[in-house]
């Protein structure tokens, strides 16, 4: 089943008189349950594409269908609902709320998601069972990122969107986070889209999408994705 269908999507930023094409007539279809890595140099349009899939931004033209439903025409409230249940986000910056405890940071999504999972269970699954009552500042970067993974998964979304999830972490911690991401995605059957400019991460993907200058250069299907441990970092 096609979970993502992007057709002829452009995103144009107006900077003064100048028009900046962040995405230029992009079309792409992605299968359910796969791990997809979007690769490309800085400024290629990777984040723009991901934000569009996540309902943070709308295309200037073209349509984006998620599970057959067009999200490019939704209004602000409908988009919020889509974000609440349809997608989970993991950013380079962990974007946790500093005044809420780890558990509260995760549990807050239960107030809005349609079919949420247990936040306690999820925190235990990401290995933070011990730290539930701490505040984010009391955790390391890797631990904070795990909280944001737990928060994304608690919403029980179909798609996980990760923008440079390891960008702020050292290699070792990064590998651990990726391992967690991969195993969680498999276990819960999520479609995972990871934006990165780290070539190595691409080796664990089912599909690798190369983006450059706002266009998709190539889409490579990887028949034998490697497990995180098998990748040479």
């Amino acid at each position, binding site marked *: 089943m096609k979970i993502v269908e992007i057709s002829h999507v452009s995103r144009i930023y107006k900077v003064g008189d100048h028009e900046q094409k962040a995405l230029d007539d992009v079309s792409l279809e992605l299968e359910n349950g796969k791990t997809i890595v979007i690769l490309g140099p800085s400024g290629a349009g990777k984040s723009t594409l991901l*934000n569009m899939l996540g309902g943070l931004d709308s295309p200037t033209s073209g349509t984006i269908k998620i599970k057959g439903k067009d999200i490019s025409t939704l209004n602000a409230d409908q988009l919020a609902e889509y974000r609440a249940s349809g997608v989970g986000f993991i950013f380079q910056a962990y*974007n946790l*709320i500093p005044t809420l405890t780890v558990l509260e940071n995760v549990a807050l999504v239960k107030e*809005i998601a349609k079919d949420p999972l247990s936040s306690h269970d999820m925190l235990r699954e990401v290995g933070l069972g011990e730290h539930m009552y701490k505040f984010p500042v009391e955790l390391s970067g890797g631990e904070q990122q795990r909280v944001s993974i737990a928060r994304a998964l608690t919403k029980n979304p179909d798609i996980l969107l990760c923008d440079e999830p390891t960008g*702020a972490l050292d290699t070792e911690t990064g590998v651990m986070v990726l391992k967690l991401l991969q195993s969680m995605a498999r276990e819960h059957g999520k479609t995972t889209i990871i934006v990165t400019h780290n070539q190595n991460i691409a080796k664990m993907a089912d599909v690798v999408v190369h983006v450059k200058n706002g266009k998709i250069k190539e889409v490579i299907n990887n028949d034998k994705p490697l497990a995180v441990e098998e990748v040479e970092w």
Partner: protein
Amino acid sequence: MLFKKLIRTIGRYKAQFISMIIMVALGVGIFLGFNIEWKTLEVNVAKAFEDTGFADYRIVNELGFSEEDLQKVASIDGVDAASRFLSVNVPRKDDEDIVMLTVSENIAVSGFKVLEGTAYDPEDTEGLWISERYAKQNGLSVGDTYTMVYKNIEFSGPIRGLVKSGEYMICLVEKAQMMPDHEKNGFVYVSPAYIKAKIGMTFYPQIHVRSSLPKETMIERAEAALGKSYMIVDKELVTSYSEAHGEMTEGKTMAALLPVIFLAIAILTMITTMHRISISEKTQIGTLKSLGFKDRRILRHYAAYGLFISLCGTILGVAVGLGVGYFFVNPNSVMGDYLDMEHWELHMPLWSIAVVIAINVVLVLATLYSVASMMKGTAAEALQPYAPKAMRRMWIEKKKVWKNLSFATKWNVRDILRHKSRSFMTLFGIVSCMLILIASFGINDTLNSYIDDFFENSICYKTKIVLDTETAGDADVEALIDRYEADWTSSMGIQIGENTYAMEIYGLEHDYFRFVKNHGEHIDLPDDGVLICERIAKKEGLKVGDTFTVSVYGTTEKYELKVADIAKSIAESVMMSDTYAEKLGVQYRVTELFTNETEIEESPIISSTQTKQALLDTFKSFSELMNVMIVMLVFISVLLGIVVLYNLGIMSYAERYRELATLKVVGFKDRHISRILIDQNLWMTILGVLLGIPAGIGVLKILLVMLASDYELTLTISWLTYVIATALTFGVSFIVGVMVSRKNKNIDMVEALKVAE
């Protein structure tokens, strides 16, 4: 270069800068405005008194003073000038107007200043010099003929000049009157020659004296010179003087009270806001440092922000201050209605300029203080983003209920507790807003209830007849009492120790006059004791059951009186029944009658009549004065509330921007996020209102204590005041809450989350 940064920074924090400028302008403006108010009065009132030779002492003898008496007084060592003086209330012919016909033998004492027409001539046997204000209100001009009737004699003549007089600065013809009525009342000066020509003689019951001698010395020397003790009234007891100075004192108290709140808010707002701005500028400060800018240079740069704000605020504030000052004291203001004087130029105390400069210095120092804490340590440390204090678990989180709270509630609670200074400022703003509202509506309630007590409960007659005590014989008075089925009163001057008061004896058969305590509770006039008013009770330290001695002015009579109860009274007086007076053997002459008749026939023994309605009308202008003040204060407090809350709201919003963006990304709807923000606002408002009510009552109590020498007020706050004040405060808070929370529609999620902190 740094100048460009200054301009851009101002652009970036527009809302904060504007609200700080407004706060400073309000603080400086209110401070200057209230000080201009009393200073303007002080200078112009003094000038008016000086211009017209306002007398320092008045020696009173109902039987009149002779030429010789005057000479004796004038030659007292320390007396600069003296004049025999006469002032009687007389009606205008065929009219209800009452004017005060006045003669001052030596016009340099208790005289007047001619604004229009010819100068005063003591030999003029025809002309009148008439109150300019009254003339204008009645379409009279120089050359017109004006006629009064006194004891069946017509006093008539051409108007020679339109004048103002310090003596009649507050032109009241009746002691229960609170506000002058310039349409119905005025004064008319004539020369001694005029009186002589009309009635063939002169009669002066007063000698007015200009002297800088202290009161005791004056009394001693006058007694020695005249060989007899007369009642000597010093200027402090003359309405024009005491009330005008009362206004100044009230102005000074307001000037000492209200601006403090605003200045405190301005300075606190400056500190909190500059602190927030310097937090968000922290990495920039670090960058400047690492580029090699010296600390001093950077500090100077940020000091420029503070200076910019305080200077803009001060300039605006001076304008606001002049506006506020003018609003209160200009010839067309209610004060202008009250005080009839020529000059109204605005003046401000010199020291207030020093205070304004000091405020500017404090504001700049506040800015420096906020920035300096961000620059501590090495450039590398300064480059580190501001690390908020680590979260600590609070006592409340250990409670069971905490667990069941929604995350929004927890978030808000922690946010409030974490940003203590911001929360404190918010609370302070709401409390101040509520406090001013409660105090200003409360003073209105209090005065209204005072007026109600007095006029609804105390005055039950329709007309008051003022008798001419010189011509009215006892038999005539008896006849009038029968004819109009009247109650009566007699008023005389008394002394308790050194202090002068009035003693009133009442013959009340119809209860046309009643005595009240707090909240209109009636007291009957006892037959074995007197009622004293609250102020006498306080000044003389008298309680119910005490006895005290009074001596009647101009006589050697002394009486022992027992305090039966304490009542409210407009004048400072001792009130007794005729029965008690007769028991004690007090000599009295009836001075006024109270009746339910409205048609009173003219008679030589009646000097004037006054209806209850006329008296009530004078209160209308008094309440107007109050209303103007209240509208102004309500406006100020609402503005204050909006500015403080908006500034803090924006700050809180800016600080939580990332968190709000995160909530949005996670899937919270705008409405939901708005509600969270408004919720926090609401809690603070509830708390602020709860604290503001007692604070307002407290301020009101202080105000009443300060007004206590003029009025016998009982703290009264109607439920409507609580409702309106609360509604207004919530309204302000809600409007600001909506204004701030609407902004979250514009949160750019992509932008907000792009860069790591």
